[in-house]
Protein backbone atom coordinates (compact mmCIF):
# COMPACT_ATOMS: atom_id res chain seq x y z
CA UNK A 1 0.00 0.00 0.00
CA UNK A 2 2.94 2.33 -0.62
CA UNK A 3 2.74 3.49 -4.24
CA UNK A 4 0.83 6.58 -5.28
CA UNK A 5 -1.15 4.60 -7.85
CA UNK A 6 -2.87 2.49 -5.17
CA UNK A 7 -3.88 5.52 -3.17
CA UNK A 8 -5.57 6.91 -6.25
CA UNK A 9 -7.69 3.78 -6.45
CA UNK A 10 -8.67 3.68 -2.76
CA UNK A 11 -12.18 4.92 -2.14
CA UNK A 12 -12.18 7.61 0.52
CA UNK A 13 -15.44 8.32 2.27
CA UNK A 14 -16.11 11.26 4.54
CA UNK A 15 -18.41 11.41 7.51
CA UNK A 16 -19.52 13.87 10.15
CA UNK A 17 -17.29 13.58 13.19
CA UNK A 18 -19.14 13.81 16.46
CA UNK A 19 -16.65 15.29 18.81
CA UNK A 20 -16.83 14.41 22.47
CA UNK A 21 -14.61 15.21 25.42
CA UNK A 22 -12.57 12.02 25.10
CA UNK A 23 -11.68 12.76 21.49
CA UNK A 24 -10.73 16.31 22.45
CA UNK A 25 -8.65 15.07 25.38
CA UNK A 26 -6.88 12.53 23.13
CA UNK A 27 -5.91 15.22 20.61
CA UNK A 28 -5.01 17.72 23.34
CA UNK A 29 -2.62 15.29 25.02
CA UNK A 30 -0.75 14.73 21.80
CA UNK A 31 -0.66 18.34 20.68
CA UNK A 32 0.24 19.71 24.09
CA UNK A 33 2.77 16.90 24.35
CA UNK A 34 4.62 18.13 21.30
CA UNK A 35 4.54 21.66 22.69
CA UNK A 36 5.78 20.41 26.04
CA UNK A 37 8.62 18.51 24.41
CA UNK A 38 10.03 21.89 23.48
CA UNK A 39 8.87 24.00 26.42
CA UNK A 40 9.19 21.58 29.34
CA UNK A 41 12.34 19.77 28.29
CA UNK A 42 13.72 23.20 27.36
CA UNK A 43 12.81 24.53 30.78
CA UNK A 44 14.49 21.60 32.54
CA UNK A 45 17.64 21.93 30.46
CA UNK A 46 17.85 25.71 30.83
CA UNK A 47 17.28 25.75 34.58
CA UNK A 48 19.33 22.72 35.56
CA UNK A 49 21.93 22.17 32.88
CA UNK A 50 22.69 25.45 31.15
CA UNK A 51 22.44 27.13 34.52
CA UNK A 52 23.63 25.36 37.58
CA UNK A 53 21.19 24.30 40.27
CA UNK A 54 23.44 26.11 42.73
CA UNK A 55 22.51 29.39 41.00
CA UNK A 56 18.83 28.88 41.55
CA UNK A 57 17.78 31.64 43.91
CA UNK A 58 14.93 34.10 43.96
CA UNK A 59 17.30 36.65 42.44
CA UNK A 60 17.92 34.30 39.52
CA UNK A 61 14.20 33.89 38.97
CA UNK A 62 13.72 37.65 39.22
CA UNK A 63 16.42 38.20 36.60
CA UNK A 64 14.58 35.87 34.24
CA UNK A 65 11.14 37.27 34.96
CA UNK A 66 12.40 40.73 34.45
CA UNK A 67 11.65 40.17 30.78
CA UNK A 68 8.23 39.41 29.39
CA UNK A 69 9.80 36.84 27.08
CA UNK A 70 10.51 34.49 29.97
CA UNK A 71 7.20 35.25 31.64
CA UNK A 72 5.31 34.34 28.48
CA UNK A 73 7.40 31.18 28.08
CA UNK A 74 6.59 30.06 31.59
CA UNK A 75 2.92 31.02 31.34
CA UNK A 76 2.60 28.99 28.14
CA UNK A 77 4.41 26.10 29.80
CA UNK A 78 1.95 26.29 32.68
CA UNK A 79 -1.12 26.33 30.41
CA UNK A 80 0.09 23.23 28.58
CA UNK A 81 1.62 21.28 31.46
CA UNK A 82 -1.08 21.45 34.11
CA UNK A 83 -4.00 20.33 31.90
CA UNK A 84 -1.78 17.70 30.27
CA UNK A 85 -0.74 16.28 33.61
CA UNK A 86 -4.14 16.44 35.25
CA UNK A 87 -5.78 14.80 32.24
CA UNK A 88 -3.20 12.05 32.51
CA UNK A 89 -4.16 11.64 36.16
CA UNK A 90 -7.83 11.56 35.15
CA UNK A 91 -7.05 8.72 32.74
CA UNK A 92 -5.36 6.73 35.46
CA UNK A 93 -8.10 7.36 38.04
CA UNK A 94 -10.86 6.48 35.57
CA UNK A 95 -9.03 3.22 34.86
CA UNK A 96 -9.14 2.12 38.45
CA UNK A 97 -12.20 3.84 39.92
CA UNK A 98 -15.44 2.44 38.59
CA UNK A 99 -18.26 4.02 40.58
CA UNK A 100 -19.85 6.55 38.16
CA UNK A 101 -20.76 9.05 40.91
CA UNK A 102 -17.23 8.99 42.30
CA UNK A 103 -15.82 9.43 38.81
CA UNK A 104 -18.04 12.44 38.18
CA UNK A 105 -16.99 14.02 41.46
CA UNK A 106 -13.32 13.41 40.75
CA UNK A 107 -13.64 14.93 37.28
CA UNK A 108 -15.24 18.05 38.71
CA UNK A 109 -12.54 18.40 41.38
CA UNK A 110 -9.80 17.92 38.80
CA UNK A 111 -11.34 20.51 36.48
CA UNK A 112 -11.65 22.95 39.36
CA UNK A 113 -8.05 22.29 40.32
CA UNK A 114 -6.83 22.98 36.78
CA UNK A 115 -8.72 26.25 36.54
CA UNK A 116 -7.66 27.43 40.00
CA UNK A 117 -4.00 26.50 39.50
CA UNK A 118 -3.70 28.01 36.05
CA UNK A 119 -5.36 31.27 37.06
CA UNK A 120 -3.47 31.59 40.35
CA UNK A 121 -0.06 30.94 38.83
CA UNK A 122 -0.70 33.11 35.75
CA UNK A 123 -1.61 36.04 37.96
CA UNK A 124 1.43 35.34 40.11
CA UNK A 125 3.75 35.40 37.11
CA UNK A 126 2.11 38.32 35.34
CA UNK A 127 2.14 40.54 38.43
CA UNK A 128 5.61 39.49 39.57
CA UNK A 129 7.70 42.60 40.03
CA UNK A 130 11.34 41.79 39.42
CA UNK A 131 12.54 45.18 40.63
CA UNK A 132 11.79 44.17 44.22
CA UNK A 133 14.61 41.63 44.07
CA UNK A 134 17.41 43.63 42.54
Amino acid at each position, binding site marked *: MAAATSSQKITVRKFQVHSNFERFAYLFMRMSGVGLLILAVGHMLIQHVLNSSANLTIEFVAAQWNSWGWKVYDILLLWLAIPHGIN*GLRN*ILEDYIHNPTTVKLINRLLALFVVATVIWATIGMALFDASKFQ
Partner: protein
Amino acid sequence: MSSLILTIRESLRYRGRSGHVSWMAHRVSGIAILTFLVIHVWDTANAHFWPQAYAWSVAFFKYPLVAVGELVIMAAVLYHAFNGIRITILDFKPEWWMHQQRSATIVWAIFLVLFIPIAIYMFSGIVGHCSELAAHGSTCWQIPPFSDFAKYAN
Protein backbone atom coordinates in the same frame (compact mmCIF):
# COMPACT_ATOMS: atom_id res chain seq x y z
CA MET B 1 -9.82 -2.19 46.57
CA SER B 2 -8.78 -5.78 46.02
CA SER B 3 -9.44 -5.29 42.35
CA LEU B 4 -7.04 -2.32 42.22
CA ILE B 5 -4.25 -4.26 43.90
CA LEU B 6 -4.95 -7.26 41.71
CA THR B 7 -4.93 -5.16 38.56
CA ILE B 8 -1.64 -3.50 39.42
CA ARG B 9 -0.06 -6.79 40.48
CA GLU B 10 -1.10 -8.56 37.31
CA SER B 11 0.02 -5.59 35.18
CA LEU B 12 3.47 -6.02 36.70
CA ARG B 13 3.42 -9.82 36.28
CA TYR B 14 2.29 -9.95 32.67
CA ARG B 15 5.20 -10.81 30.40
CA GLY B 16 4.62 -8.14 27.85
CA ARG B 17 7.37 -6.98 25.55
CA SER B 18 8.95 -3.59 25.01
CA GLY B 19 5.60 -1.85 24.56
CA HIS B 20 4.36 -3.05 27.93
CA VAL B 21 7.51 -1.90 29.72
CA SER B 22 7.32 1.46 27.95
CA TRP B 23 3.69 1.84 29.00
CA MET B 24 4.50 1.19 32.65
CA ALA B 25 7.46 3.58 32.60
CA HIS B 26 5.31 6.22 30.90
CA ARG B 27 2.61 5.91 33.55
CA VAL B 28 5.00 5.92 36.52
CA SER B 29 7.02 8.84 35.15
CA GLY B 30 3.80 10.74 34.47
CA ILE B 31 2.62 10.35 38.05
CA ALA B 32 6.03 11.41 39.37
CA ILE B 33 6.14 14.49 37.15
CA LEU B 34 2.61 15.54 38.04
CA THR B 35 3.26 15.21 41.77
CA PHE B 36 6.34 17.37 41.42
CA LEU B 37 4.65 19.83 39.04
CA VAL B 38 1.71 20.59 41.31
CA ILE B 39 4.03 21.34 44.22
CA HIS B 40 6.36 23.33 41.96
CA VAL B 41 3.63 25.51 40.43
CA TRP B 42 1.98 26.39 43.73
CA ASP B 43 5.38 26.98 45.32
CA THR B 44 6.71 29.15 42.48
CA ALA B 45 3.54 31.26 42.51
CA ASN B 46 4.70 32.27 45.97
CA ALA B 47 7.47 34.24 44.29
CA HIS B 48 4.81 36.88 43.89
CA PHE B 49 2.31 36.08 46.61
CA TRP B 50 4.66 35.11 49.46
CA PRO B 51 8.29 35.82 48.53
CA GLN B 52 9.69 34.79 51.89
CA ALA B 53 8.23 31.32 51.54
CA TYR B 54 9.48 31.03 47.99
CA ALA B 55 13.02 32.12 48.86
CA TRP B 56 13.05 29.58 51.71
CA SER B 57 11.80 26.80 49.46
CA VAL B 58 14.48 27.51 46.85
CA ALA B 59 17.10 27.13 49.56
CA PHE B 60 15.35 23.99 50.84
CA PHE B 61 15.58 22.41 47.37
CA LYS B 62 19.35 22.45 47.70
CA TYR B 63 19.14 19.96 50.55
CA PRO B 64 20.97 16.95 49.05
CA LEU B 65 18.16 14.42 49.27
CA VAL B 66 15.76 16.89 47.67
CA ALA B 67 18.30 17.84 45.02
CA VAL B 68 18.62 14.17 44.10
CA GLY B 69 14.85 14.22 43.68
CA GLU B 70 15.35 16.89 41.02
CA LEU B 71 17.56 14.41 39.20
CA VAL B 72 14.82 11.81 39.34
CA ILE B 73 12.32 14.29 37.92
CA MET B 74 14.76 15.14 35.13
CA ALA B 75 14.87 11.45 34.24
CA ALA B 76 11.09 11.20 34.38
CA VAL B 77 10.60 14.26 32.15
CA LEU B 78 13.10 13.09 29.56
CA TYR B 79 11.69 9.57 29.31
CA HIS B 80 8.07 10.67 29.38
CA ALA B 81 8.67 13.28 26.69
CA PHE B 82 10.48 11.00 24.26
CA ASN B 83 8.16 8.05 24.75
CA GLY B 84 5.21 10.42 24.42
CA ILE B 85 6.48 11.53 21.04
CA ARG B 86 6.90 7.88 20.05
CA ILE B 87 3.27 7.17 21.02
CA THR B 88 2.06 10.25 19.18
CA ILE B 89 3.90 9.22 16.02
CA LEU B 90 2.61 5.64 16.17
CA ASP B 91 -0.94 6.89 16.80
CA PHE B 92 -0.86 9.26 13.83
CA LYS B 93 1.02 6.99 11.47
CA PRO B 94 -0.51 3.51 11.87
CA GLU B 95 1.34 2.35 8.77
CA TRP B 96 4.65 2.70 10.65
CA TRP B 97 3.48 -0.10 12.94
CA MET B 98 6.31 -2.39 11.91
CA HIS B 99 8.82 -0.03 13.58
CA GLN B 100 7.14 -0.06 16.97
CA GLN B 101 9.40 -2.44 18.85
CA ARG B 102 12.54 -0.80 17.53
CA SER B 103 11.16 2.64 18.35
CA ALA B 104 10.71 1.64 22.00
CA THR B 105 14.38 0.66 22.18
CA ILE B 106 15.43 3.86 20.41
CA VAL B 107 13.52 5.93 22.97
CA TRP B 108 15.41 4.21 25.81
CA ALA B 109 18.67 4.82 23.97
CA ILE B 110 18.00 8.52 23.41
CA PHE B 111 16.93 8.81 27.02
CA LEU B 112 20.15 7.26 28.32
CA VAL B 113 22.38 9.20 25.96
CA LEU B 114 20.90 12.45 27.25
CA PHE B 115 20.24 11.56 30.87
CA ILE B 116 23.55 9.97 31.87
CA PRO B 117 25.68 13.04 31.15
CA ILE B 118 23.02 15.31 32.64
CA ALA B 119 22.84 13.16 35.75
CA ILE B 120 26.59 13.26 36.18
CA TYR B 121 26.55 17.03 35.76
CA MET B 122 23.67 17.58 38.17
CA PHE B 123 25.09 15.20 40.74
CA SER B 124 28.47 16.88 40.64
CA GLY B 125 26.61 20.15 41.15
CA ILE B 126 25.13 18.78 44.37
CA VAL B 127 28.52 17.55 45.53
CA GLY B 128 30.09 20.90 44.59
CA HIS B 129 27.44 22.80 46.51
CA CYS B 130 28.03 20.68 49.61
CA SER B 131 31.81 20.97 49.48
CA GLU B 132 31.61 24.71 48.95
CA LEU B 133 29.45 25.11 52.03
CA ALA B 134 31.78 22.85 53.96
CA ALA B 135 34.77 24.99 52.90
CA HIS B 136 33.06 27.98 54.50
CA GLY B 137 32.44 26.16 57.76
CA SER B 138 28.81 25.45 57.02
CA THR B 139 26.99 22.31 55.87
CA CYS B 140 24.51 21.45 53.16
CA TRP B 141 22.84 18.93 55.46
CA GLN B 142 20.93 21.68 57.18
CA ILE B 143 17.66 23.26 56.21
CA PRO B 144 17.89 27.04 56.68
CA PRO B 145 15.29 28.49 59.06
CA PHE B 146 12.33 30.36 57.61
CA SER B 147 13.34 33.53 59.44
CA ASP B 148 16.55 33.74 57.39
CA PHE B 149 14.45 35.02 54.51
CA ALA B 150 12.52 37.69 56.36
CA LYS B 151 14.13 40.34 54.16
CA TYR B 152 11.93 39.13 51.30
CA ALA B 153 8.71 39.63 53.20
CA ASN B 154 6.50 42.20 51.49
